């Protein structure tokens, strides 16, 4: 049984008749111990998807007109408050984009990690465990660091601390929402490397949200690409990176500068991501798609399983 299974999730912001549909029938699944990379530009709905897993979206304004989110077979959308608190941290933990802002500035790091322990593993809520966790994420001088305040640490350290805090309750799924976007490139690599190492050491599943295709290849087993509230392509990581099938994925790949590429102009994707409520009819990428046909704008294409485990939302996927 998959650890996480999102089935046809629909999320609206606001109520009818002014509702804006942010997620329109999103489905994905993660097996225990596996890593899924969720890729897309800002505004694609990837963060919304991630946050919805533990129902962290404020409701109002978020509403769930359809779909299910199954964690170990239980529907998160139907859980009562107490059960929800149990899975938050206990089953699924989060690492956020801006670690400095996501740590409470008035409490020491050790205190905040202990809080995570107290909530789910009270028998292990000791200073020793805090130190062990800090060591695990590669923070030097962990005893001293436990007594630091967030603002006394660098961005990289903060993120490591955040990861330690996320790991403390031994979750089965770690949702990392753009964990490296706010960090330096060199630190980015370190964090991604850490995540990879932890994945192996702890056998935990990871949902890695990012707009950066580059980092996905190192850690993910599977990759899903989102555009305008829909999944447009899903594939095993290596497959997707070597042979992207959806026009959007291809465009994304082309816009990533490689180290060995010519120092020519970057190929940007013309146009912009459509805003919520202003989605075009039919295929949402059609206005920007180089191979778009007239019929693309008539009807939203289905997600086709073109190979076992490979899905594409484009009937013209074979065209180059």
């Amino acid at each position, binding site marked *: 049984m998959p650890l996480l299974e999102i089935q046809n999730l629909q999320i609206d912001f606001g109520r009818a008749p002014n509702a804006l549909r942010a997620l329109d029938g999103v489905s994905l699944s993660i097996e225990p111990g596996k890593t899924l990379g969720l890729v897309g530009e800002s505004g694609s709905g990837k963060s919304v998807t991630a946050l919805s897993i533990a129902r962290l979206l404020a409701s109002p304004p978020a509403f769930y007109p359809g779909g299910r989110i199954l964690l170990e077979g239980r529907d998160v959308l139907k859980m009562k408050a107490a059960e929800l608190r149990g899975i938050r941290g*206990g089953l699924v933990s989060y690492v956020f984009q801006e670690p400095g802002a996501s740590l409470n500035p008035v409490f020491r790091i050790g205190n905040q990690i202990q809080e995570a322990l107290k909530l789910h593993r009270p028998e292990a809520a000791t200073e020793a465990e805090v130190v062990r966790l800090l060591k695990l994420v590669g923070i030097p001088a962990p005893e001293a660091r436990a007594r630091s305040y967030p603002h006394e640490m660098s961005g990289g350290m903060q993120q490591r601390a955040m990861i330690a805090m996320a790991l403390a309750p031994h979750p089965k799924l770690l949702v990392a929402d753009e964990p490296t976007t706010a960090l330096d490139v060199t630190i980015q690599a370190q964090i991604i490397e850490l995540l990879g190492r932890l994945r192996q050491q702890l056998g935990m599943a990871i949902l890695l949200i990012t707009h950066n295709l580059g980092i996905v290849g190192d850690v993910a087993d599977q990759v899903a690409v989102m555009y305008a509230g829909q999944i447009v392509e899903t594939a095993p990581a290596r497959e997707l990176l070597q042979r992207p099938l959806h026009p959007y994925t291809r465009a994304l790949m082309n816009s990533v500068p490689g180290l060995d590429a010519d120092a020519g102009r970057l190929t940007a994707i013309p146009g912009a991501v459509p805003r919520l409520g202003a989605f075009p009819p039919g295929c949402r990428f059609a206005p920007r798609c180089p191979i778009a046909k007239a019929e693309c704008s008539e009807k939203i294409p289905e997600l086709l399983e073109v190979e076992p485990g490979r899905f594409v939302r484009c009937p013209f996927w074979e065209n180059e």
Partner: protein
Amino acid sequence: MTRLITRFVWSAITLLGTAVLTFFLLNAVPGDVARVIAGSKASPDVIKEIHAKYHLDDPWWQRLGLYLGQLARGDLGHSYVTDQPVSEAILTRIPTTAALASLAVVMWVAVAVPLGALTAKFRGSWFDRVTLVLATVSLSLPAFWLARMLQYWLSYKLGWFPVATFQSFRHLLLPAASLAILSVGYYARLIHTNMVEALDSPYIRAARAKGASETRVLFKHALRNALIPVITILGMDVAGMLGGVLFIENVFALPGIGTLAVQSVFNLDPPMIMGTVLFTGALVVGANWVVDLMYGWIDPRIKSGT
């Protein structure tokens, strides 16, 4: 270190300025303290004797110099009317004022914190709106009127509280409540605003993601941040509080600094007036000091002033 010294110097200058300004104001007020001491039927000779005794006929710069010299020696002088040492009078009154103010602060914090926190949580609800209206009303109430109304209705008409004076803890309840009502609206809104800001912060979402209950999120994570500016404002609000204390003490005839100050003005008693003014000035200056020092301790993001 230099910062500390500069602060000290400025505080001293502030107090000195207060003393001098009060001295001049006092001189501008018509009325002769000798009359108060001697009574309306005393002969001009007696008045002259009193003038001589207290140097009331000396030129102003001599009298000011005399007073400042005394002050430098730490001597606040003696009341012209009762002959009681001013410092003794003030010291005996401090406990009452302190008790009143502390009880009031406890009362209003106990109400403002939950109100501010809950109205932030339930932003826009009718609860929030009603609280906003009540808060605005409480801010606008004149202190004297509120105190008298409460005294009239709750003590005099209904007999729930003693009418006046300070003879037991019960006697402090209504005065402290009056003082608290004056401030609770302001602080509830202040906490509300700060809580709203705190609740919108990313660390709140992270706390929820850890599985923290809403209560914990509200009262541990958000409140701790929201209270930082509130505590500093509380410290600086000492001056404003003293104004309310003055009215409340007088309405309820409590033996505190407020009644001492008013009495000394009616008596045209210069040393006592100067003494109470300087004391309250020192209190305000001191409170600002404390706030400054505390700031670094409350908010870990600020390194305390060096």
